[in-house]
């Protein structure tokens, strides 16, 4: 049987640091780019390495179902989807955090005062869980982008979104009320691949862990 290791990579901002990491880990990645027409890149060797370049939100699905053995994707996507994945390493890059943000004039509200308010978000599961864990009920409005528009247009009272620098919030006159959790990029594995391809997968995971830890110490 041929030895193939399939890795699902996230398109977009994570792709560049991901490729750098793969290079440092000694994996072939010449010519991988999301501008290319092809979304699949195959490199011969033992094991043969195959990359799938897909939308970040699709990476967990590829890995959970075993269409990819490993995946590189943000924690934000992982928590929202709640898929059954092995989370093997924190890769450190792609930092962002989940926040509850409100229009600036509401910044003195306490969490309790948000009860029964409307929240717009791309992350309904994260939002629902956060408010429920705090004993609050909110109405969730799921949007697919430009969440910060919702309070401006009166669609919602507040938003739950990911921010990195906070610039988008400021530009839209929103302020962060509560930080829900931090997110960085993770290396995930399929639960069966991890066991059946242990010989190929485990050394790779350890290499990536070393690179990431080494980077932190410097």
């Amino acid at each position: 049987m041929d030895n193939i290791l399939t890795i699902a990579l996230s398109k977009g901002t994570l792709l560049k640091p991901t490729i750098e990491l793969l290079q440092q880990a000694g994996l072939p990645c010449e010519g991988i780019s999301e501008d290319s027409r092809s979304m699949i890149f195959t490199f011969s060797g033992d094991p043969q390495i195959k990359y799938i370049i897909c939308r970040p939100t699709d990476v967990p699905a590829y890995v959970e179902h075993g269409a990819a053995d490993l995946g590189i994707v943000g924690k934000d996507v992982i928590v929202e989807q709640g898929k059954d994945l092995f989370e093997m390493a924190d890769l450190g890059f792609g930092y962002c955090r989940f926040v509850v943000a409100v229009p600036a004039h509401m910044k003195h509200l306490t969490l309790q005062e948000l009860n029964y308010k409307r929240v717009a978000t791309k992350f309904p599961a994260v939002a629902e869980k956060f408010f429920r864990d705090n004993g609050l009920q909110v109405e969730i409005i799921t949007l697919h982008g430009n969440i910060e528009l919702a309070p401006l247009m009166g669609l919602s009272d507040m938003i739950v979104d990911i921010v990195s620098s906070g610039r988008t919030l400021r530009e839209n006159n929103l302020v962060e009320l509560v930080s829900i959790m931090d997110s960085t990029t993770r290396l995930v594995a399929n639960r069966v691949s991890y066991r059946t391809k242990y010989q190929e997968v485990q050394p790779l995971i350890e290499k990536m862990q070393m690179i990431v830890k080494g980077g932190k110490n410097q």
Partner: protein
Amino acid sequence: MDNRQIPKGLRDLLPQEVKNRRKLEQKAMQIFTSYGYKEVMTPTFEFLEVVETGAGKHRERLFLFMDREGGILSLRPEMTVSIARLAAMHLRDSIYPQRLFYSANVFRHVQPHLAQYREFWQTGIELLGASGPWADAEAISLAVKLLQELGLNDFKISINQIGIFNGLLTAAAIDSEDKDEIRRLVEKKDLVELERRLENLVMPDAWKESIARLPVLHGGLEVLQKIPYLEQHAATAQAVEDLLRVYEALQDYGVTRHIVIDMGVLRELELDYYTGVIFEGYSPELGYGLLGGGRYDNLLGQFGFPCPATGFALGMDRLALVLARQEEETNRYLLGGRNLRALVEKAQQLRGEGKTVEMDVEGNSLEALQEKVRGRGDISLLYLDEQS
């Protein structure tokens, strides 16, 4: 409502599927019977109190309804608890060990997807009244035998002793909430969160290091030597010793090429009753586990009949899926070689057996053909040498 809908997560099986399924079940029954196991059946639903005994409180996973006297009923989510109840009620005076098997549909309120349905079929055994490594080895080797005989080409069974993990946590003296959380993280192999959790706990670094390494310890016997600071805790050391004895017994059964020691296997969280050696079976063809089982020495006691026990269940829907994929794979050939006459003969013979044969008409070399099939799961290369 459209009268042609069926509830989410359920499905119809058509004649060909049922035929295949029955064939597998009959084969399984034959094997179980040859080991002295006898079939039992239990009711499709039980009182919730019965289901929650041992299997723990996971009501969101159950299909619940009421009877007219106000009792809460649950469709069975698995068979082991029902069989423990059955044995405690009816088989007290039998001669032990008792060997029982079943083939039954079970129900769980899960998110349905490929290979995960809300009604699915399990075939399995329970070996009641026997403790010790030979009993564990019988269950595990029977699982190997079953998967082999049912036609699985490639599979692995991961084994562990849950006492190793529990012992480490007991020694570390952490409370039960943290313990559940750490167990969940080890089982899910969420190494990132596990490391963070451990950092916040008050315990010697040595213990933290041991626990953090559990999820990635995987391999042969050498794995057992890699658990640091074992000897400092008697219960853990004893669990390791037990696992070692079982592995040795499996060597005598000659099945260790299918066995992997995997410290990350703690079995699904919905089943809380395991106490000793536990195991899970996997096929590289499928991203989900096929088979699971282990020792549960305290379960029968909860029904008033203390008795050691072990057993396993095989998911028949998943097995059927793997076998179907395997068949697709092995039924399609790319045939190459230099001697056309021999090739034609071979092709006819294979086609006669119902296989699909693509002949290489370009006279490619073996290397070139290998390159062609590389990475294709749906076809096998057959190359006829000059001599053959």
